[in-house]
């Protein structure tokens, strides 16, 4: 006990004998350890990709077509283009729909029946098995168009991207302070003007983060593309023909009995990670809050 009544000063130095200090120490070390364990998979995957895929990284990869069986060299320029094109299609489809849906959820009808139902469905869709998106698009678009295509691939990726965009954009718009929205209405904005002129620009960094999360999620998807874009060993000539993608190339080449193809699969994995990283950095540069 403290005895400040007498003139003995209280003991203020660190002591491990107290249970409180001991528990604090143990828990701190525990938290550190768990944080390190959580970082292990990511770091080791990156390490592996750099070790195995880094060696083959060259300009050739970007400019050449995939090699056949016993060929040496080659690249996967068509797969990079295919992945980027399909991700762009998915973004073009899902971002306008997702952001406008989020505007409805956040501003116009947050507690309406429609709002509640669509928010629930968006949450369900985040856990939607990606292969089912592929099967769905196969039935609706591939069969109707009469063949595999980049468009079908893009649509299946858009379905997977949409819920992420909706939910993160809704959160970002809700973060715009109420007082700022009041100011907009107080100066004579309609609700539409408030959303376009104040809420969307202010929430832009958060919305872009959501778009990036969506892109990162779908860029590496292979299951839906198997049913929709399939693969191609040639350069992309039109959006309505089978299209190569990095993820399918990795899938195909990694199971081949040729060293050259396996090396390319590693390099393609590294390139895929780099593409997602580049998208990420770019969106952060352009989406940074200006004011």
């Amino acid at each position: 006990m403290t005895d400040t009544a007498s003139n003995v000063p209280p003991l203020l130095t660190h002591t491990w004998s107290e249970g409180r200090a001991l528990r604090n120490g143990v828990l701190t070390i525990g938290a550190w350890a768990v944080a390190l364990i959580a970082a292990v998979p990511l770091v080791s995957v990156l390490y592996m990709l750099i070790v195995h895929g880094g060696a083959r990284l060259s300009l050739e990869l970007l400019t050449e077509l995939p090699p056949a069986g016993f060929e040496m060299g080659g690249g996967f320029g068509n797969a990079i283009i295919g992945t980027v094109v399909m991700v762009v299609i998915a973004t073009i489809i899902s971002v306008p729909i997702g952001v406008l849906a989020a505007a409805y959820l956040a501003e116009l009808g947050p507690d309406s029946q429609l709002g509640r139902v669509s928010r629930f469905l968006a949450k369900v869709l985040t856990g939607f098995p990606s292969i089912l998106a592929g099967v769905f698009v196969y039935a609706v678009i591939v069969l109707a168009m009469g063949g595999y295509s980049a468009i079908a691939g893009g649509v299946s990726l858009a379905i997977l991207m949409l819920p992420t965009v909706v939910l993160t954009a809704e959160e970002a718009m809700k973060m715009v302070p109420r007082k700022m929205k009041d100011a907009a209405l107080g100066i004579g904005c309609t609700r539409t003007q408030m959303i376009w002129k104040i809420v969307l620009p202010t929430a832009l960094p958060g919305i872009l983060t959501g778009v990036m999360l969506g892109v990162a999620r779908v860029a590496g998807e292979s299951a839906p593309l198997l049913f929709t874009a399939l693969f191609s060993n040639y350069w992309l000539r039109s959006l309505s023909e089978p299209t190569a993608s990095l993820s399918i190339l990795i899938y195909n080449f990694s199971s081949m009995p040729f060293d050259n193809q396996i090396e390319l699969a590693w390099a393609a994995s590294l390139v895929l990670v780099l593409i997602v990283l580049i998208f990420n950095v770019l969106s952060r540069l352009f989406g940074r809050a200006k004011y």
Partner: protein
Amino acid sequence: MTVVQPLKGEAPGKPASAKSGDLAINCNVSKIYYGSFLAVRDARVPINKGKITGFIGPSGCGKSTVLRSLNRMNDLIQGFRLEGDVHFLGQDIYAKNIDPVVVRRYIGMVFQQPNPFAMSIYDNVAFGLRLNKFRGSYDERVEHALRRAALWDEVKDKLKVSGLSLSGGQQQRLCIARAVATEPTVLLMDEPCSALDPIATRRVEELMLELKKDYTIALVTHNMQQATRVADITAFFGVDISKGGRTGYLVEMGDTEQIFQRPRKQLTQEYISGKFS
């Protein structure tokens, strides 16, 4: 009014009668409900042109509710319902054919918390002008508004800087500049100084006295000294807890000097002498 180009759009109607000619707003609220909760009753508050009308009273007395119903800001709150009428220059703003968005362009508002937009100082002030598709010199108009808000000298070299980078007092003056840029007829101020330090409060008060030459101001304040310093006319609101709820109502209204020196009601006397708050 100072000579500036008028905004596009029709001017509000002329006063309906000679009697209400010196009134900017004739607020004739008999009841305001939020859902089934009776928030305010019997608030007949005439707002005189070119004067500062102060609304004082204890917490929960409905002074802010009444103020916000003067430009239909309460419409945004679910369950809001108003019985009675509010005439702005002779027109009932709660009439069926009135567009509340247009009303708010004539009756501007300054809020309790400074709330500049996340954009540059210049764009903050120009926002309302752009909204009204103002044609004319934006630079001139922005400078004019910032001068009116006594902020020009502090920000003239950094108009492209974020409005959010300013101090709290500067932000509030920026909000005032934003509100006056579109030359509204009436300015509603909802405790504009409650988030400010005494020096910033002082500046905003001086500003209000300056602004009343051109604008009609209705001011909600929690601070009785502020009411005595700036308000020409004071409305004192009380809370009626007799029926279980907390319903605000207008106790009395008169020249500020009369309210604070010779209140007619016992309740007013007790409030201004600090017996309750």
